[in-house]
Each structure stands twice: as structure tokens, then as C-alpha cells.
């Protein structure tokens, strides 16, 4: 046998292990994000690969619990009853889809929202200080 090199095996990513977008950090319960240590790109969820520079040097980080409601809808079809859903632009620029909880303050795009947690459910709701009238 002559000496030869052997192609390394690529390994699968166990991306089905971490399904929850909520996690416990020093700050408390926060949305889970990932930050690339090579280029600084921040992403929603537990990631192994940076979608910008494809570095695998990515750290799990807590995402901000406040942001701006970009848009929203109330879903009337399906089994969940009326379900408000929206896109929230977090204060560090990361966008996430989120359940939105409606209270006394009517929802409108560009309003400030903050993360809320009820047992296993997480959602965004109008931030304290958002007025009844825009």
C-alpha cells in the first residue's frame, strides 16, 4: 500500500435538536439567537453556520426582548381560533416571526413591542408606554 490522503467526511448538522426559539440566559428567558464570531452577523435561532460568511464559529446569544412591530395579521382559519401573528424587528436588527398578544392598545405597524412569556408560550405585546391612540 502506498501512502495516500483520505478525503475527510463532512458531518451532518443536528439542527432538529434545538427547536425552541426561547432559552434561558443570564438576563433571564430570551429569544435564542446566534452570532457569528467571524463577521458579527446575528441571526434568529440556534445556528451552526453563518448565512453571511459561512463561518462555523457561531455563538449562542440572547436576543433583545424589545423591538418594533413591522407588520401583523389575525389568522381566522385553522384550529387555533383567531391568532394574531406578526414580524418583529428586534432592537439589534434581527427580524422574527412571533405570536402577538393584543390588549387594550390596538395593534399598528411600527409600534414598540416587548417579549412576554407565559409558561411554555412566548409572544410579543405592545410595550408599556404605547398609547391607546397612535
Amino acid at each position, binding site marked *: 500500500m502506498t501512502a495516500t490522503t483520505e478525503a475527510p467526511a463532512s458531518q451532518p448538522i443536528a439542527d432538529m435538536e434545538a*427547536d425552541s*426559539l426561547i432559552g434561558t440566559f443570564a438576563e433571564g428567558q430570551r429569544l435564542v439567537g446566534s452570532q457569528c464570531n467571524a463577521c458579527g*452577523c*446575528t*441571526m*434568529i*435561532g440556534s445556528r451552526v453556520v453563518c*448565512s*453571511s460568511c459561512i463561518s462555523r464559529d457561531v455563538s449562542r446569544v440572547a436576543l433583545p426582548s424589545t423591538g418594533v412591530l*413591522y*407588520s*401583523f*395579521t*389575525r*389568522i*381566522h*382559519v*385553522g384550529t*387555533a381560533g383567531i*391568532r394574531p*401573528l*406578526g*414580524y418583529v*424587528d428586534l432592537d439589534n*436588527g*434581527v*427580524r422574527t*416571526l*412571533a*405570536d402577538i398578544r393584543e390588549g387594550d392598545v390596538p395593534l*399598528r*405597524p*411600527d409600534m414598540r413591542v416587548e417579549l412576554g412569556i407565559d409558561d411554555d408560550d412566548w409572544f410579543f405585546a405592545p410595550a408599556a408606554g404605547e398609547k391607546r391612540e397612535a
Partner: protein
Amino acid sequence: MSDNVFVISAAMIPFGKHRTSSYVGLAVSPLIDAIRDAGIEKSDIDAVYVGHSYGGMMTGQRICKEIGLGTIPTVNVDNACSSGATAIHEAWQAISQGLIDIAVVIGVEKLTQFGGGTLPLSPEDREVKQGIIMPAVYAMRATRYLHETDATPEDLALVSVKARKHGALNPFAQFRQETTVEEVLNARRVADPLTLPMCCPTGDGAAVVVLASERARKRLDSKPGIRVAASVLHSGHVAEGFRDMIKPEISYDSARDAYAMAGIGPKDLDMIELHDAFSIAELIYYEAFGLAEPGHGVDLIRDGKTTFGGDVVVNPSGGLLSKGHPVGASGVAQVAEAFWQLTDQAGARQIDKARWAMTHVTGGGTAGLDHGACTIHIFEAA
């Protein structure tokens, strides 16, 4: 330099709920009709491209074997709602590069297999796990559009009213009844501000076109058909942060490239078949295609500029909202409509002296992307 490519025939079944037909049962009749109308034999066909999203393994081969069409390459293409148009793009590429002369393109889908409800999306997607559905994506576009412009829910309803008016003239359409703004606004709510008639129906369908090189067209002495002036396919690009949901870059960029390839602009178009899966989409795409400035697409629907007698007839077939949207079939059905309009075979919905047509489909609900795919074609009467 690429060779000219022509669509030399088109056929389709009326879209609707064809519960007793399989994928094969949906596609075989238009396949035979398109071959016959093209004046070709089975032995003339160099390749078959088949767009579908939910047909399962070897859908194209299952269809083609029923008419004894085999040996030649059969390519199954999935790009969600862009599957059929992507199949046309692939056929166009092969012919325009001189690799083959004649291709058959089939678009087929059977959505009644799911027994109702919204379109099944990939359960592996992060936002799908969170509960996103396609109506909610478009509803959020609509909420934002109403927030940034002076458009109202009445304007969203006007798009559905126009679609139903056009569909009433089209024997291939799933919905052939006209409607009113009041009916649309008072209908069942799906995802605010969208009501049921602002959403395309689910159904089944199949459409087939035959593409040929200039050389083959001359050899066959076939009817003139229509020339493919542009064929463009783009994919979505991820945004981890902000995305402007009412200025979808994938459709803006595809339109820009298609106009450049065709050497024409929006003012030259006589008709457009665009991806009106939900009524809000039509207003956004008026802007993406340069028919109106951003924020002013709504003026066109209010002023009747996009119906018969207007500047450009948008969705003369009734569009996805009225004709129906069997996902993989839609892109091919749009090209069939362009073919009939540009060859003066569109009956009651014929656009007078139509010369230039554009077709546009996007596709896919995927976290971080506007759409997964976007296909635009421009055609010129030959």
C-alpha cells in the same frame, strides 16, 4: 448568442376540483392536444420538462408512459408555484443553446388530494413550525401596504372584482361568477385584512405547451406561434433582519432582467399574467414591473388601467384569483393564456391587437426569503 425559441402550441384543462382525476388523468388530455396542435409526432420530441410540487416520485414519467412517450429525457421540476414556469425556463435554455429542438412542458397539480385548507408548506421550515401559512404572509404584506400608502381594504377588493370579471369570460377559469366590492369585503375573513375572495382557490389543473427552435419551426412548417423574448429565473436571498415586504426584490430584479433581455419596457406590454395568489400581490407587482411608482400601484386598479380597454390588461384569464392556482400548473397556464392572446385565440377575452405579453410567477413560503423563486417570461407575437 442564443437562438430564438418559440411556443408553437398550448393546451389546458379548465381548472377546478377534479376529484376523480389523478396527476396522469389531469395531464394526458392537454398533453395529446398540445402535441396535435403543434403538428408534431411523438418522435419529434427531444425532451419533456414537468413542473409540479406535490405529484410525488416520477410524475412526468407516469404521465408520459400513458402515451408511449419515453427514452428521451424527462425532467421533473419543483419550485413551488414557479415549478411550471421553471420547467419552461429549463426547456427554453436547452433549445436556445442549440442542445435540442423541440420540448414539451407540462405543468400539473392536484390540490384536492389534501382535502382543503391552506397549501402544505415544508414542516422543516422554522416559521412553518411557528404556524405561518401563505395567507398570513400576504396578509402582512397587505397590512404594511395599507400602512405605507393611501390604499384601503376596498382597493384590495377591487383587485378581486376585476379578477372575477375577467374569469367570467374564461371557460378555463375555476370561478366564473362576477362579484362586488361589498361581497368581497363582507366575505369570510381568512387573515386580516384578507377575506376569502382575496385569496386564490385551491384546485386541480394541468397545462401543456410545446417549445421549438426556429430551425424546427421551419422544418415542421408549423403555425407561427409566439417568440420567447425573455426567460428569467431568480431565487430568493436570505435577510436575517429587515426586509421590505412591499418591495419584493426578487420580482423587481426579475422584471428588470426580463425587460433588458427583451429590449422592451413596461409601456410596450399589452398584457401581463402575474402572480395574484392574494389580491394585495397584484398592487405590489404593478410597482415591481414599473407600471406605477412605488406606493401608487393602487391608482391603476382604481382608474381601471389594468382591465380591458385600459393601458395593459393584467390577468385577462382571471389570474390565480379566478382561474385558480394548482401550484405547479399555474406558470404553464399563464403561458398558454399569452399564447392564445398573441395568436388571436382568446375568444370573449381577446385583447385587441395584442403583441407583447409578460408572465410572472413567484413561489414558496420560506423563512428569511421574500419568495423562494420567481420566473418571468416575455413573449412577442411572431
